[in-house]
């Protein structure tokens, strides 16, 4: 069975309020389609023959098909064969989840390339089972997917999918943080869980620091943007090491310690910090705030009332991603992309 690569490109992400309160930008539909085309070309170069893609109505698919059609008119075989999943389109995040499930169940999808922000990656990670993800950032406020030229991500995904790189090298395990209310089915975050005083989801994004109360991060990287940056500037924790970090935050005006953190693109704010501690995997943390909203990876998704119990727990090795850097280093060392057409003539 020839391995396929899945592509989930979310057309509806990255339109949040941070475009107004800061100077965040997003990647437009046409550009998202161009990213898909670049990744497809890279996959073809690695020998991937077939790609399945999530259908959507935002215009990405149509633009991609037109791109393939044009290329076909000009030269042959720049792109792999492209099929769309047969699924009902709702125009919501449910499409992403559905596509991830279908790709996981298909059995022949070796890698899923994901275009989107933290939210899209979170949705895929929750439903993709053991299929590794190769993430391409298109969102506003992304801490999880790396910023990298999609052609390289496509090459790494292709090499990994074709089995040219040993899984131990190609795929890295990632942590998640699970949140459940009253013992219900957990929601996950890939980077951070923030507890804020708002008791409504509202415009989802977080930008008013005075509402921040607690923060749980799977990794704390001073190089990333968003809530995780707060933790990263206090005590860095890498993606690969065990455990995360839990912080109790406070209004900046009264806090004993403050950190100037890039909480959104173009928005560097003073955040008060009361205390912090390592967050070992499996340990359940209970927020001290009795009611409020829970932001997953920077967006308010849930709210809870005083009578509800909230449990926050870090999970090690929750899902896998393609380690693009490791794959490309391996490929270079092993000469995977080298070709010696005159080898037979060598003396």
């Amino acid at each position, binding site marked *: 069975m020839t391995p396929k690569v899945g592509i989930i490109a979310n057309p509806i992400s990255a339109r949040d309020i941070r*475009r107004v309160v800061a100077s965040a930008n*997003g990647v437009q539909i046409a550009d998202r389609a161009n990213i898909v085309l670049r990744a497809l070309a890279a996959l073809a170069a690695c020998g991937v023959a077939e790609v399945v893609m999530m259908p959507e109505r935002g215009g990405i698919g149509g633009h991609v098909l037109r791109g393939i059609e044009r290329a076909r008119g000009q030269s042959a075989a720049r792109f792999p064969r492209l099929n769309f999943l047969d699924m009902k389109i709702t125009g919501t995040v449910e499409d992403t989840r559905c596509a991830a499930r279908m790709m996981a169940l298909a059995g022949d999808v070796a890698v899923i390339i994901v275009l989107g922000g933290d939210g899209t990656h979170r949705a895929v990670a929750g439903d993709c089972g053991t299929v590794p993800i190769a993430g391409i950032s298109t969102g506003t406020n992304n801490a999880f997917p790396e910023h990298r030229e999609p052609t390289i991500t496509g090459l790494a995904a292709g090499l990994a999918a074709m089995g040219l790189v040993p899984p131990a090298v190609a795929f890295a395990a990632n942590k998640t943080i699970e949140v459940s209310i009253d013992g219900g089915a957990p929601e996950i975050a890939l980077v951070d869980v923030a507890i804020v005083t708002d008791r409504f*989801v509202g415009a989802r994004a977080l930008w008013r620091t005075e509402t921040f109360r607690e923060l749980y991060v799977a990794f704390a990287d001073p190089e990333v943007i968003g809530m995780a940056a707060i933790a990263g500037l206090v005590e860095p924790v890498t993606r690969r090491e065990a455990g995360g970090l839990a912080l109790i935050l406070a209004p900046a005006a009264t806090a004993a310690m403050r950190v100037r953190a890039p909480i959104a693109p173009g928005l560097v704010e003073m955040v008060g910090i009361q205390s912090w501690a390592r967050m070992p995997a499996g340990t359940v943390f209970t927020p001290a705030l009795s009611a409020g909203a829970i932001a997953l990876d920077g967006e308010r998704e849930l709210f809870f009332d005083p009578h509800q119990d909230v449990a926050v727990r870090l999970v090690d090795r929750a899902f896998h991603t393609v380690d693009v850097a490791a794959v490309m280093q391996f490929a270079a060392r092993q000469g995977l992309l080298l070709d010696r057409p005159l080898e037979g003539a060598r003396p």
Partner: protein
Amino acid sequence: MTNNPFPLPKDELLAAYRTMRTIRDFEERLHVEFAKGDIPGFVHLYAGEEACAAGIMSHLTDVDRIASTHRGHGHCIAKGVDVHAMMAEIYGKATGACRGKGGSMHIADLSKGMMGANGILGAGAPLICGAALAAKFRGDGGVGITFFGDGASNQGTVLESMNLAAIWNLPVIFVVENNGYAESTSVDYATAVDSYVDRASGFGLPGVTVDGTDFFAVYEAAGEIIKRAREGGGPALLECKMIRFFGHFEGDAQAYKAKGENDYNRTNRDCLKIFAGRVTSAGVVSAAEIALIDREVAALIDEAVGQAKGAPLPSARDLLTDVYVAY
């Protein structure tokens, strides 16, 4: 309860609810009365979309101007136009907001900054650029909001206006009320790229998409956008994803909608239910307070309908007046 976690004080929460409830009851009642055959002409109902009007208009005063759509009742009510005058207008009475000369599609009250519902889709966008230009010349801090649907977003006027607002840095907010249907045609069919934010980006305008059934989502996003525009930050776009409970106009059998779509939305995506649920479960507003507003609004709408039905019709003389200020 003193601990109010919402971005509005309690009295404003109640006011917002009252606005939404008034719109809902006004529209539900029109649906019933229209079916009786008492109401002439075309009527386009806003029921289901209340959170958008209320969430945005909560940030505005009479100095701010709005240009509405053919589906304008909600905007009118939220902008403070008198409900009795509106109802009388829809009945075509001399006591109507437009003395019976405009009808449902043309209710306006410039003293409230309501520049009119508009039967021409996309026509409000250039007008609101003018309103914003006037505000800029006057320096009164006013902003202009133009509402248009996913269908009218394809009008050249809207796109031209985005460009004009951008180059003149006008305090204009383009609000896309995306209820998924341009009359009977799906947004997926009629709009090449289903991202109004992308269109705004093409003119260098920031754009935000929010859940239009969530009052707080609209309120927060609109608040930031309006504040930015008021302070000279320039135009922006706000897309509200909404639900239209009724058809395009009254009498529309809605055969183009999915089976059960309206029922599902009424049950799960009713912005009034969502709002009331939030504020009561947070303990800020009591169920009794909600119920009281419901009763008061019901009485108000009863009274408005009663008065409208009993109001005098325009006289033949009115046919010829109000064409010009002087001719």
